[in-house]
């Protein structure tokens, strides 16, 4: 088991190395002089001496292997360069936005997972009934709605009409302590609700489909025959088994978590990574984009690694299969 985990880690380390190396290569692969890519300004008017100075500043006057080594050294020291547009270290900018994205998208994914899974299980359990049909129809309608539209409706109702929640931002500049927590919670409510409503469809449908299959399995009939209550059978036996594909979906969603939710962050003026990446694209802030892509790539690879390592813990068949192979 440990040997297999080590092998997995090695494979993922290789993938990370390739991703980081590609990240290093981006400025060199882009058309033209890498200094144009990194400098972000018009280098056409610079004198050769100024150009050389800038080139030296970015370490582009060294050989490619030396640059590659320096790139890894800087990376190890947490140096991802300087944002051209913001004139600040890329790491600072990313770390500034990262907590907000983790909180927003993370909470949204957790909420949509819990809600989608429970509703999906309920719809499967009551399959054939009118309430189940209504539930499926309702979730499909929700799933078909674009997230920006869901967000705008929530704003119109809960912010403009009822005045219950703010419609923009993550907090206010002068909030501290409990007031800060309250600000964060109330300002997160509508965007989290939007992400939840916009993404619960996938969890709902996955759970329902898996549950419907599982409910016909002999072990479920056996559980009924033992005299267990419907709730015990549904939650303790059927849902537990049906959760495996849902877990896969969770890890996939978690992998994309770091890339933020551009649309929702835009509608709610939320200061997350998705919006940051969008802004970096608009102003061609390549160093910032490089840093963001690196973060997202590592996030996705990390989520896949976690899924790979934890799946056997959830599915005895995988454990047994691997044991049989060894």
């Amino acid at each position, binding site marked *: 088991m440990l040997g297999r985990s080590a092998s997995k880690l090695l494979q993922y380390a290789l993938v990370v190395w390739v991703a980081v190396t590609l990240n290093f290569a981006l400025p060199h692969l882009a058309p033209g002089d890498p200094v144009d890519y990194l400098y972000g300004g018009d280098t056409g008017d610079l004198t050769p001496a100024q150009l050389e100075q800038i080139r030296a500043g970015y370490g582009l006057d060294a050989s490619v292997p030396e640059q590659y080594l320096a790139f890894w050294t800087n990376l190890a020291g947490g140096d991802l360069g300087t944002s051209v547009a913001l004139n600040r270290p890329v790491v600072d900018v990313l770390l500034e936005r990262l907590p907000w994205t983790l909180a927003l998208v993370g909470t949204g994914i957790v909420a949509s997972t819990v809600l989608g899974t429970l509703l999906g299980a309920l719809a499967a359990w009551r399959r054939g009934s009118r309430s189940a049909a209504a539930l499926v129809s309702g979730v499909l309608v929700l799933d078909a709605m674009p997230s920006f539209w869901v967000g705008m409706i929530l704003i119109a109702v809960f912010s*403009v009409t009822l005045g219950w929640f703010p419609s923009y931002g993550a907090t206010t500049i002068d909030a501290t302590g409990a007031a800060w927590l309250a600000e964060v919670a109330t300002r997160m409510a509508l965007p989290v609700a939007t992400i939840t409503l916009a993404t619960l469809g996938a969890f709902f449908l996955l759970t329902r489909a898996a549950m419907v299959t599982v409910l016909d399995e002999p072990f479920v009939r056996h559980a009924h025959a033992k005299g267990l209550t419907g709730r015990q059978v549904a939650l303790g036996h059927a849902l537990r088994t049906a959760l495996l594909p849902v877990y896969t979906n969770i890890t996939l969603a978690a992998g994309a978590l770091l890339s933020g939710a551009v649309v929702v962050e835009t509608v709610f003026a939320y200061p997350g990574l998705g919006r940051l990446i969008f802004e970096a694209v608009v102003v061609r802030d390549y160093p910032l984009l490089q840093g963001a892509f690196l973060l997202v790539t590592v996030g996705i690879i990390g989520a896949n690694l976690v899924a790979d390592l934890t799946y056997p813990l959830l599915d005895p068949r995988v454990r047994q299969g691997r044991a049989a192979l060894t």
Partner: protein
Amino acid sequence: MNRRLLPLLLAATIAGAACSADGDAAAPVDGPASADRLTIALPEARGPLNLFAGSDEAVAELVYDKLLAPSPYVEEPRPWLATEVRFVDPTTWEADLRDDVVWHDGEPFTAEDVVFSIAYFAQAPTGRWTHHVSDVPTFDASLVDSDTVRFTCAFACPELGTVTLADLPIVPEHVWAQVPPEDAKEVRDLPVGTGPYRLVDFDPVTGYRFEANTGYFAGEPTVRELVMPVIEDPSATFTALRSGQIDAALAPVSPELIAEFSAPGSPVQLVRTAPFQFPELRLNFRNAPFDDPDFRRAISRAVDRAEMLDTVFLGQGRPADKGYPHPDAPFANPELSTPYDPDEARAILDGLGLVDIDGDGVREGPGGPLRYEILANGGQPIDMRAAELVAEDLSAVGVAATAVPLDAGTLAERSTERDFDLVIGTITAHGVADPTQFIMSHRSGYLWEHPEIPYPEFDALFRQWQASTTIEDRLAALDDIQAMFNDQPTSVPLYYPDEYYAFRPDRYAGWAESPGFGIVHKWSLLPADVVRGANAVVAGD
């Protein structure tokens, strides 16, 4: 005042502290004239107001002051940090300074700060104010005595008082002397100014917080605290305004919201402004046949400005039939005329030998058929519609053009690298209402690249402009340059828009337009008599 009276004004001394007058120029609507706290949305966070790194001018001027106020965009800037600004001779000006001004950190404002600021702007990396001290004009500052500064120009500078000194913010020597000029852009400390507000907190995520400078020399601000969150999306901004979460917005209102906000019972009120900015069609003077003055004139004549205004901006503004610069700019030549005349455009093109040989409706030239792309920001529907209309207008005179949508990054890159034939953009107040920038734009590559690229017509006029020693002669030279430019433009204004700014009158009603700055600026936040004395706002309609 007619701009022709400016020489008289400048021949005399620009003197006197701000005069006091009763009135409501800064309070055009009913509502509170003061407030404890206002929340004003900004469309972007541009750092802690480092003047050398780039910042929104209206916001930065909450913190900083200039020798004259409010800006070069009015005909009569008044002494502000100065008590008197004197025209000594064509290359020399002097300014007497106030002795009751204190920097936000408690240090006294001195003449040394002024001398230092001029030198520092010249040494710092190229930025918004560089040309004012190192090209148009080129000048140094020196101490006459502890309260007086002398400005000495390399060539005649009759507009130094009304333009340059009304545009350059003054920074504290005791702060910036610690920063090597080459590192000026890197500073991220909170700024120290003399202005009516102190920036007490900045966070890239949550925005800005200002507190009133209660000891401000011109009078205590009318609002005690300003909070400025960053809301990039216009829709989110005006939703927050509609629901009362914010009290005003720095950005103008989207055209489609004007009817809603103007409706009776709306909790939001509008101020209509005539901003010093306009959308323009830029012609790449480096590429043939756009390097030909007659061809550029033909393009200008082919654009139907009235239709452009009606279709693209729903008639909210004026047709751009008075060319470049903005017709309301204090130095604008009132005789300028850039009419829509497709027949003249066709005649010019015929005269250039650019005729449709193969009968496909597109003229041919030495380089083949006249087919061009008009680049525009695909994320801005108004720009795209303008590009499509220009394409239709050019097609009517036998020039095939296609509107090409680009993302903002690509568009900026291709504009900077001059990788275009035609491009739709927007030029703002500094470009179209500042006479020295108008000259500078001919030297910087924006309107031309003088003297690197030959421009014989401009050469003679530029020398005439440079040699003029009175404001009257300088304005006359500027008139000639404007006439010449609009006869062979490299930028064709498409329309002069009106803009609407929105606010909640139940929270604060002191908003007023300051030319070139919308309604969110320090002049909306100072007592009405002070504002009137500074000639800083346009009286409400």
